[in-house]
């Protein structure tokens, strides 16, 4: 019906879990799904490409490729078949960072399965953050946690690499261990954070906090709206 009028809001046809919908072009997958009537209780978080909750797989009609994306970032295309991956079952061993130490075999100890990586690069192809996932898995295999930390810095743990890996690794948890090791053993301690923590502990902000806790909702709104925002 709307197509018969003007082409102002061009529509595209998408399929959400097999069902066909007409949605306005230009929407993100997430918005398109909401437009189609879905309400997210999972698979959605920050809406800004940071939290990794909205892992999505899709194919476009006429193309054999299975594509991976973040629903909050990717715009819909005509003929998209969409499905979400609300959760990735993943191995997550417990370790104590204090005791671990940055030894060469630290990854193999907790994630021996990284030795299964065959360098197929499937993970890299899947990553919506355009990370060089295979390279960081390989760096983990040789214990180079600094390299892993730097290559995986933008990882948001969306889980898509783990879903695709034919040797069933969970790259992102391995990367998390690397960044934790990096933070603990390499990164210089942030002086200003230490100072601020001291200030907090000495009770410097107690009074202000107390005031906020006692404030009414309207007062809070007021404070929020007139807050100082740091220039970019």
């Amino acid at each position: 019906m709307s197509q018969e009028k003007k082409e102002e809001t061009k529509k595209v046809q998408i399929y959400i879990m097999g069902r066909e919908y007409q949605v306005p072009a230009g929407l993100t997958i997430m918005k398109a799904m909401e437009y189609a009537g879905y309400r997210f209780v999972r698979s959605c978080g920050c809406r800004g490409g940071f939290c990794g909750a909205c892992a999505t797989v899709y194919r476009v009609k006429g193309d054999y490729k299975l594509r991976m994306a973040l629903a909050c970032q990717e715009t819909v295309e005509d003929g998209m078949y969409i499905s979400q991956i609300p959760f990735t079952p993943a191995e997550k061993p417990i370790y104590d960072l204090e005791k671990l130490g940055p030894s060469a075999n630290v990854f193999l100890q907790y994630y021996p399965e990284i030795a299964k990586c065959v360098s197929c690069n499937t993970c890299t192809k899947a990553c919506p953050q355009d990370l060089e996932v295979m390279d960081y898995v390989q760096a983990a295999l040789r214990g180079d946690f600094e390299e892993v930390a730097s290559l995986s810095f933008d990882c948001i743990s969306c889980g898509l690499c783990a879903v695709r890996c034919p040797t069933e690794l969970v790259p992102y948890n391995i990367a998390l261990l690397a960044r934790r090791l990096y933070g603990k053993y390499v990164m210089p301690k942030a002086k200003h954070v230490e100072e601020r923590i001291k200030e907090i502990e000495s009770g410097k902000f107690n009074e202000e906090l107390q005031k906020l806790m006692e404030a009414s909702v309207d007062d809070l709104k007021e404070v929020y709206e007139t807050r100082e925002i740091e220039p970019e």
Partner: protein
Amino acid sequence: MIRLPYYPGCAVQTTARNYSISGVAIAEKLGIELVELPKWNCCGVFPFLANDDIMRHLAPIRNLIHVQEMNEKGIVQNENRVVTFCSMCYHTLKEANLFLKDPEKKEKTDIFFEREKEFVGGVKEGYKGGVEALDFLEVLKDIVGYDKIAEEVKKPLKGLKVAPYYGCLVLRPREIGIDDPENPTILENILEALGAEVIDNPNRIQCCGSYHTVDRRDIVAELTYDNLIYPVRSGAEVIVTCCPLCTFNLDFRQKDAGKLHRDLQEIPVMYYTQLMAIALGLDKQFYGVDLGLHYVDPKPLLEAKNLY
């Protein structure tokens, strides 16, 4: 100085750092600069021996492509050779070229890399062929030469009784091996050039038990005993190796072997590059004996022989 692309591999970066630390240093001493590949991945350790699954053949080919890229970027000039220390890396990289000799397999991998190009992190171009894998032992034999090694010796290993051990992958199969698969002599020649006394080891080309060390230590223990007992009985004081996995099994699994066979005395196991670092008079830090990577500590022996 000859500049050669160098593929380290995972082992010499971790449990076999004593191999690469000594190896890179002696290479330099002998006029060879080893230029590490700017990017590399695990070689796969063994060539995959099935014909039909291209995915498991990709790992070594990627590394050959990185050598190709080094040339394109001008990091090395017209240098289509890549050097490794680890026997397993050498074997796997070498085999990749043999695998690609089959036009059908070459085509399949080309298509794979072609499709990969549109993604970040993939290779920029497929493999054009012709990158030759060299084991560092071949570099010593063919590029440096035994005479030059002998000339450079500052501290001859006089009176040190050494038994070489080759293992499998630098020798077999014949089309990959660097020496006569039944009667290799490279290690013996090097050791003689260093002034050491070479002790015969009839099992020097036998398997060390390889990856069974992960889940079948009983098998490895038997082989370790078998591989060590003859040289030990013939008075060898140290075993010399060229493969990080052989070395691990011969060294660390002596514990298991000794439990099974009480007559086995402990014997240190060292890489030939470590002995070379000593004989060529390099700094102690390049011996790689202080890194906590040996099960049987070679230091007491070296001290007794005035080599440390």
